[in-house]
């Protein structure tokens, strides 16, 4: 069959399989089979995502695949696949410790697939209304997952996430309506006026003032989901209290999806000459997030919350990069999105293992891991070094590009950026140094049962990205960077 059809099939698989699996998993009672099914479905999606590279379907009014989302889809399904593998080992341990019951696990797996479906939908959506619906769905699902443990803290985190998330969703909807209103006179009523490719084609004719207003709401709305300061409040607790696989997916994927939505609309803005430049807004939000997170990292006592704040920091860096604009900074931003999700999910895998072998997430009670659990300890060290943007890992490349290009253009902006980077680096390392090194405590030794393969694979990918990027990826990045203006 022709490439386009194949692509269409792939799209259908990407949406249908998780949806079906979600329904199916509700019925599967045995958690082992459930986990296997979960992995299988994720694998199928991954394959479908890969086939998209070979055969791109042509866009319709609802769905489309272009240079921007194609690699995000692949990334999304890849990470959710590895995460499903990780979670298969993780939940078994949770059952043993009795933190979860099989019933909850059934629910958990179903929700996992639902989340995958929502995120794929959001990435594939060619329709800004559909995009909104997908992200709202993702919010609801993750709220349920965060509250999974039913502890006070978990419920409270979920509730907070729920309220703030739905407020963000509401704001985003208002923005979406405004965009439609801006487009409707130009394109005409009905679906086309919400189809992204039509919008971007005619964006220059839109009413700029309306677009500006819309962007304010969209930035705040989807920015809430992306965890930008001061809209970030839900993020740390949601990461810290939910099951670790969910933390990995939240940090690695959902933040990306929210940011992806923001970027889509930034493209609209930059396609319209007379609209206000969205850059400064994003730069300010980015710097705020970076500096704020850097300061917050210092006092953290919970290792998952620590890395949640580090996610805020990196969202800040990425937003800053896109705010700066220009081929170099945009390229760096896209690269950073990709590498951050890989690295951060790997870190959360490691942290999950650590908190299971140590039976706690309290940093102060974890000591000298490189002695007791060399794999975990050095894995954590490698992850921290990678996320801190040190070679030989890939994040270094993006930070190199951001900082250098910024300093060449806006030295005064580069200053707070560098200060923030240094601050975050120092505070993060300050917390982790004791975890990895030093005299280990006398606690009974618990071996790592689950496979550390996902961690290794992710870190290897990030490592390779440090000195070599595949050609097509570079081509897409540069094309999208050009679109982002």
């Amino acid at each position: 069959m022709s490439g386009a059809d194949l692509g269409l099939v792939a799209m259908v698989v990407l949406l249908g399989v998780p949806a079906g699996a979600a329904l199916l998993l509700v019925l599967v009672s045995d958690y082992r089979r459930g986990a296997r099914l979960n992995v299988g479905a994720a694998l199928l999606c991954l394959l479908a995502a890969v086939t998209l590279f070979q055969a791109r379907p042509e866009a319709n009014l609802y769905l489309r695949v272009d240079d921007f989302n194609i690699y995000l889809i692949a990334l999304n399904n890849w990470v959710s696949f590895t995460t499903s593998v990780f979670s298969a080992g993780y939940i078994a341990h949770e059952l043993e410790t009795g933190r979860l019951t099989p019933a909850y696990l059934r629910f958990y797996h179903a929700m996992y697939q639902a989340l995958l479906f929502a995120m794929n939908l959001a990435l594939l959506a060619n329709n800004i209304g559909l995009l909104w619906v997908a992200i709202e769905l993702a919010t609801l699902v993750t709220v349920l997952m965060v509250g999974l443990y039913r502890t006070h803290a978990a419920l409270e985190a979920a509730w907070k996430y729920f309220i703030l998330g739905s407020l963000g969703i509401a704001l985003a909807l208002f923005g979406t309506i405004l965009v439609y209103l801006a487009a409707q006179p130009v394109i005409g009523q009905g679906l086309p006026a919400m189809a992204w490719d039509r919008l971007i084609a005619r964006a220059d004719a839109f009413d700029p003032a309306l677009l500006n207003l819309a962007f304010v709401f969209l930035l705040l709305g989807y920015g809430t989901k992306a965890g930008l300061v001061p809209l970030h409040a839900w993020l740390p607790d949601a990461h810290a209290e939910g099951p670790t696989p969910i933390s990995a997916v939240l940090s690695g994927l959902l933040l990306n999806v929210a940011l992806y939505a923001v970027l889509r609309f930034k493209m609209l803005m930059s396609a319209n000459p007379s609209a206000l430049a969205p850059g400064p807004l994003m730069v300010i939000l980015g710097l705020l997030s970076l500096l704020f997170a850097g300061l917050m990292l210092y006092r953290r006592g919970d290792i998952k919350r620590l890395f949640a704040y580090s996610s805020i920091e990196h969202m800040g860096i990425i937003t800053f990069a896109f705010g700066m604009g220009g081929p170099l900074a945009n390229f760096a931003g896209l690269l950073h999105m990709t590498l951050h999700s890989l690295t951060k999910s790997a870190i959360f895998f490691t942290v999950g293992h650590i908190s299971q072998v140590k039976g706690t997430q309290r940093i102060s009670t974890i000591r000298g891991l490189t002695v007791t659990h060399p794999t975990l300890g050095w894995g954590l060290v490698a992850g921290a070094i990678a996320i801190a943007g040190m070679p030989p890992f890939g994040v270094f490349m993006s930070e190199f590009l951001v900082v250098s290009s910024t300093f060449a253009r806006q030295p005064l902006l580069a200053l707070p950026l560098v200060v923030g980077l240094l601050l975050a680096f120092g505070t993060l390392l300050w917390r982790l140094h004791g975890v990895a090194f030093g005299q280990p405590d006398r606690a009974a030794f618990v071996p790592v049962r689950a496979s550390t393969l996902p961690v290794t694979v992710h870190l290897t990918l990030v490592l390779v990205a440090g000195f070599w990027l595949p050609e097509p990826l570079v081509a897409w990045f540069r094309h999208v960077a050009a679109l982002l203006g």
Partner: protein
Amino acid sequence: MHGLAFDIAHFLAGGMVVASFLLLYQDRLYALIHVFALHSLVLALAVGWQAAVQGAHHLYITAGIALVFKAIVIPVALHRIVRRLGIHRTLETVGGVGRDMLAGTGLVALAILVMLPVTTAADALAREDLAFALAVVLLGLLLMVTRRNAVSLVIGFMSLENGLVLAAAGARGMPLAVEISVAFSVLIAMIVIGIFLFRIRERFDSVDMQAMDTFREERRR
């Protein structure tokens, strides 16, 4: 469109703003719930009118949802919650009603300021609607942040969301309006259930909330 239709639409949208102000004004929980029911009723009328004017029949569904779900089901549910959880009947405001009203007026002014010059391209009706919708949204937010009470928070959010639906209805030929309102209704249903599930006691910055903080992380080290 002819003047009458415009005037009615205008009247209904304005009515929602007034209803929002009424919400701000309440200091009794039940009264708040009743006013919210009124708010949703006005919304239903406004959306219905838009459906008639635009000849967009799917909007009738939205109107229906607003009428049945928000104007009847939710208020009843909230009534029961308040009784079940034995929540304080009086509302505790952060600032004091007067100040809130003042802020509210400011917000309305802001909304109009932001909106009016914008949508020269869109038709007048949409513009008016949009201005009022934005006002309702902002007032809803104000309600959310000035009341120390779970129920009032939910009501604030719902009134905000009413504003959104109003805007969506006002936007000519807006597709997915129904889907969106459905999606939102699900959201709200979950929030209401949430209050049940999470057993959030009456006050948000209340003592047991502080207790949760200690769960969350040792505060000062």
